[in-house]
């Protein structure tokens, strides 16, 4: 045990969620002392306390960070400054229409089956383990999740800009489980970003890995651990050097950061936010497990960049902030879709529950206070969905969707959270225990509105 300056150690604030303004009175010092004793290893060595089981993940949490995964060699290919292949924008009919195209519907059907048969049954354990099972990740690759956002010319499946299809897929996956949805969508999000903004060289260097058989984990790292974090003003910096950039900063809530082989990192360059492709074996990168309230199956991590040197070709897209802003919006769109899917899962779950659960001699669904809660879930959920779809359709058509995605995000963050809250409330005590999934959805839905990046459509 290291010896800290005694006075600093006696102050209660600044750790354990205690504000620095708190002071201890005599009883407080006594309790603090007891608490220290209770935490001491000696109790365990003497067999005085039952060993608590600890997941591997939380062990890493308590101390050390590790270097990032070794990345494969991405073979440089293609012309450095040539524009990459771009999917054309969706042509618009000018008609109000809520019917998905045949292709989109097929996609939704396949993903819905995957979400129902594979994702949902794995969700509980994956949440506890803070990791997605290999079978789920592999099945996700098998149905082509990483290449959904890529045009045919780049080895993908879409003929047009696929923001709408991506939104429908994220919604369907979110209905299975938000954490596993993020884990399975994260690599494809990086591929989609390279498809959208990459140069010919960036596309030919990185995309073959995503369209081939051995798809790497990859992550879009935009969030930072700052209160009132504004994604458009990242504190991570990119400094120009003679032949590239040096990146410094910290990114939080990065999905599957420990195994990722490629990162897209947001950083400020010359006063504007920009995106950079960073291979995981680049020196100066370290990663630390950072499990959160929810979305745990996505193995969230903190990524540190300490003097990370990247070549000039690492810059992804424009330096005027436009690429970065579009990336932020498309990521928010993906989170909205996940919220819609998760909120739908809540509605699907509480509907039969309140009809079966009896109190005072009849199903609780027969009471207006219960039934109206369900009605409001249905109403707000559909509003969330329509707001999200509107933003997605505009994005796919190449129209400005800044306003639309902001309105969708506002609804998905607040109404989505309310739905999570009501989901637990409707089950009462049963909602609070892990026997039912509603407490997980409650934790997951809190991510909406604060998560930036990680997934993108």
């Amino acid at each position: 045990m290291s010896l800290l300056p005694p006075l600093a150690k006696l102050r209660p604030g600044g750790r354990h969620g205690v504000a620095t303004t708190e002071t201890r009175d005599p009883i407080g010092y006594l309790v603090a002392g007891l608490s220290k004793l209770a935490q001491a290893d000696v109790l365990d060595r003497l067999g005085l306390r039952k060993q608590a089981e600890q997941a591997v993940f939380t062990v890493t949490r308590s101390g050390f960070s590790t270097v990032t995964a070794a990345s494969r060699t991405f073979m440089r290919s293609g012309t450095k400054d040539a524009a990459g292949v771009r999917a054309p924008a969706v042509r618009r009919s000018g008609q109000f229409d809520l019917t998905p195209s045949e292709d989109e519907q097929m996609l939704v059907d396949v993903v819905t089956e995957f979400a129902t048969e594979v994702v949902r049954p794995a969700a509980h354990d994956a949440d506890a383990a803070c990791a997605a099972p290999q079978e789920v990740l592999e099945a996700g690759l098998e149905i082509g999740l990483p290449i959904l956002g890529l045009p045919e010319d780049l080895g993908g499946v879409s003929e047009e800009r696929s923001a709408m299809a991506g939104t429908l897929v994220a919604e369907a996956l979110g209905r299975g489980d938000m954490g596993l949805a993020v884990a399975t969508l994260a690599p494809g999000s990086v591929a989609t970003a390279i498809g959208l903004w990459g140069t010919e060289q960036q596309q030919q260097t990185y995309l073959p890995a995503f369209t081939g058989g051995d798809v790497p984990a990859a992550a879009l790292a935009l969030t930072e651990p700052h209160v009132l974090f504004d994604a458009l003003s990242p504190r991570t910096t990119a400094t120009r050097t003679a032949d590239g950039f040096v990146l410094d900063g910290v990114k939080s809530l990065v999905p599957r950061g420990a195994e990722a082989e490629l990162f897209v990192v947001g950083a400020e360059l010359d006063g504007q936010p920009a995106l950079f492709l960073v291979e995981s074996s680049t020196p100066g990168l370290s990663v630390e497990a950072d499990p959160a309230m929810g979305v745990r199956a996505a193995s969230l991590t903190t990524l540190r960049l300490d003097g990370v040197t990247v070549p000039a070709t690492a810059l992804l897209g424009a330096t005027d902030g436009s690429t970065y802003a579009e990336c932020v919006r498309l990521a928010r769109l993906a989170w909205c879709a996940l919220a819609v899917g998760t909120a739908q899962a809540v509605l699907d779950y509480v509907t039969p529950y309140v009809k079966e659960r009896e109190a005072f001699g009849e199903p609780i669904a027969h009471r207006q206070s219960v039934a109206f809660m369900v009605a409001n879930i249905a109403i707000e959920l559909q509003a969330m969905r329509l707001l999200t779809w509107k933003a997605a359709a505009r994005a796919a058509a190449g129209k400005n969707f800044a306003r639309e995605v902001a309105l969708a995000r506002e609804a998905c963050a607040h109404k989505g959270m309310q739905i999570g809250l009501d989901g637990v409330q409707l089950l009462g005590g049963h909602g609070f225990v892990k026997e039912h999934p509603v407490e997980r959805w409650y934790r997951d839905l809190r991510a909406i509105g604060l998560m930036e990046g990680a997934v993108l459509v």
Partner: protein
Amino acid sequence: MAIELDDPRKFRTLAGQAHQVAMNMLRPISRKYDRAEHEYPKELDMLAAMIDGLSESGAGEGAGAAGVRRDEKADDGGNKNGANLASVMSIQEMCWGDVGLLLSMPRQGLGNSAIASVADEEQLKRFEGVWAGMAITEPGTGSDSANIRTTAVLDGDEYVLNGEKIYVTSGDRADHVVVWATLDRDLGRAAIKSFVVPKGTPGMRVDRLEHKLGIRASDTATIIFEDCRVPKENLLGSADVDPKQGFAGAMATFDNTRPLVAAMAIGCATAALDLTRELLADAGVEVDYDRPALAQSAAAAKFLQLESDLEGARLLMLQAAWMADNRKPNSLEASMSKAKAGRVGSDVTLSCVELCGSVGYSESELLEKWARDSKILDIFEGTQQIQQLIVARRVLGLSSAELK
């Protein structure tokens, strides 16, 4: 086919025209008739003539109160943007001008929507061009419309109506009233039918006009029926009392009118939000859609929440109308749209008054008026609570006996 939720291109001209009419004809007289309650807004006659002209030329695509009829044309399977969408869009714009005045628009009464929804072809022809109010509520019966006491007794070729109806919008000014009455109180909902009663029919009289919180430009009447005789051909729809069909016939009107009322709430709230956006900008507050709401001012964050709620309500309204245009059953979605629009309409207009402080509260601006006008839209054509009941029953698959 592709998902797209922007306003349909083919109705943008129509909505644009309605916006111009609202701005240049309704707004200038908006405060005048709010103050002069019960005075007939004579300016509307010219406007109504213009709207008739528009619909005859086909430019309006059949939009308006009667635009809710679901014709039985063969379905070619394609996506349709038709009269229902045109109606909600144009009504929203007119109510951006003034809800009370829209409700006073000749030949655009809720009774017209009822006729359009359930009349047969012969009746449709006979009642063409009438202005019909809607008489459902009674002193002892509000939301519980299955419990109405006004009776209709067949006597020869005529029905004899007896009862008292309250809260009849345009009950004084309209030239016809669609009245809900029961053929036999013992037979419950199935016996409730609607009757078209021309003004001036002996036995029918307007008893009084209400003084109201809002929509003061619109007259709200109490009408008494005492041995009022109407031809039996004025019964809308089928005269059979079919317990299986139950209330469905009469209630079908609501599937069509609820999105229209949602449109009124959205139009009114949009007016408040549009003005508030500008007043806030004058005060140095501009909403940034990309920055987190919590990193902006409290006023900007509040505005963002209001705008999001309003846009959500609007999309639910467009969905309900689109489903009607495509002949999909939309009872659930119609109630969802009215529930959301009703409560959002109140929240937006009241919050805009708060955001604008004494400027919002004073009669020098219209914000306080919109905050009064909006309240009725969460009440008539089915209150918030009735909409939630309908949504809950549909979502949970419960009958009205199970979920009371």
